């Protein structure tokens, strides 16, 4: 490699490295804001903003979904397997909303510690399989638990 080319190569490498470091620092500084949601544990420890709107993410607690028969109102527990928060919501739920499924709710904590949501989004996982395979895995898991 000729000396000029070598110099150019070093200059460009330095430029890319500099931009990478700057971006890394910026992302570290804004880490909080890049988190899309808070977990129930963070609500319990008071890390979630109080009196302000924020997003709460977790798993819908099995058997906790209570639907009001006369309206679209629904309440359910949301957990990260450490802490749980009760969520109340009125509106249409996404197709993937079900017990044991991850969801993200947007709203505010009221005085009683209930999270009043005005938007509920489903967070699906990275697993894809045919229903028969899912059934088989379910059965195997049930057998293992016995």
């Amino acid at each position, binding site marked *: 490699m000729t000396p000029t080319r070598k110099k150019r190569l070093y200059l460009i490498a330095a430029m890319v490295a500099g931009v990478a470091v700057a971006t890394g620092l910026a992302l570290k500084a804004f*880490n909080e804001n890049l988190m899309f949601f808070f977990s129930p544990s963070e609500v319990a420890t008071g890390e979630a903003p109080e009196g302000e709107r924020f997003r709460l993410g977790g798993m819908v607690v099995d058997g906790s979904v209570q639907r009001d028969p006369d309206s679209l109102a629904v309440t359910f527990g949301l957990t990260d397997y450490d802490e749980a928060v009760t969520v109340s919501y009125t509106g249409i739920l996404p197709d993937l909303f079900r017990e044991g499924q991850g969801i993200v709710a947007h709203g505010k904590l009221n005085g009683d510690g209930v999270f009043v949501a005005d*938007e509920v989004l489903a967070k699906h996982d990275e697993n894809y399989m045919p229903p028969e395979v899912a059934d088989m895995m379910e059965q195997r898991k049930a057998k293992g638990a016995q």
Partner: protein
Amino acid sequence: MFRALVNFYHRLGSPPHFYRISGRLAPWFIGLALVLMAGGLYWGLVLAPTDYEQGDAYRIIYIHVPAAWLSMFVYMCMAVAGGLALVWRMKMAEVMAVTAAPIGAGFTLLALATGSIWGKPMWGTWWVWDARLTSELVLLFLYLGVIALDNAIEDRRLAGRAVGILALVGVVNIPIIHYSVEWWNTLHQGPTVTKFDAPSIHWSMLVPLLVMAVAFMLYFGGTWLLRARNEVLRREGNRRWAMELPEAS
């Protein structure tokens, strides 16, 4: 063997040779891509089973995931070409960097649009500002920036180098897109195929996905060659070799 490779590389670096070789290769790339796409689509839309949770909506994966992979792969190709253009001042590298941008922008647009259409029924929203979606949108703006910069500079050689710098600076965004779902909590799910342990997708759904990914890759290769040889002809149109082309008479 090595000599032959070096020779091939030097010939590719010469515009008339590139023009001839690319003209011969491009139809094969595109033809093979279309055949694989037809097969992959039939497999993905008809033969592959429905998903246990998402039903048939998951079938958008067969275009969304390859488009998203390609949006990053094309960027890396563009950045490598940009680096070669900057350090070695190779004319052909400048051409390759500049012509990759509109194709990459197309794949990024597709990844965003199909993801949005998938998100509406599954998540319950067209768009959220989570780290994955936002960094992919930044990628689209990087591509648009490269295209705008190339159009703004009259001098082709200078434009090639300017594009190279912007492309290289934007490379930081690629690992951010890839790791966004692990570094931060996002609405977008984690990686399915590219994680370290076995992919968490049933093989009957994975195979058509990989076929589509290869098809998209070949399609990119073919359209990149077509765009690059156009750019060569545009730049060298008043050279003797271009004037003497049979198609120009």
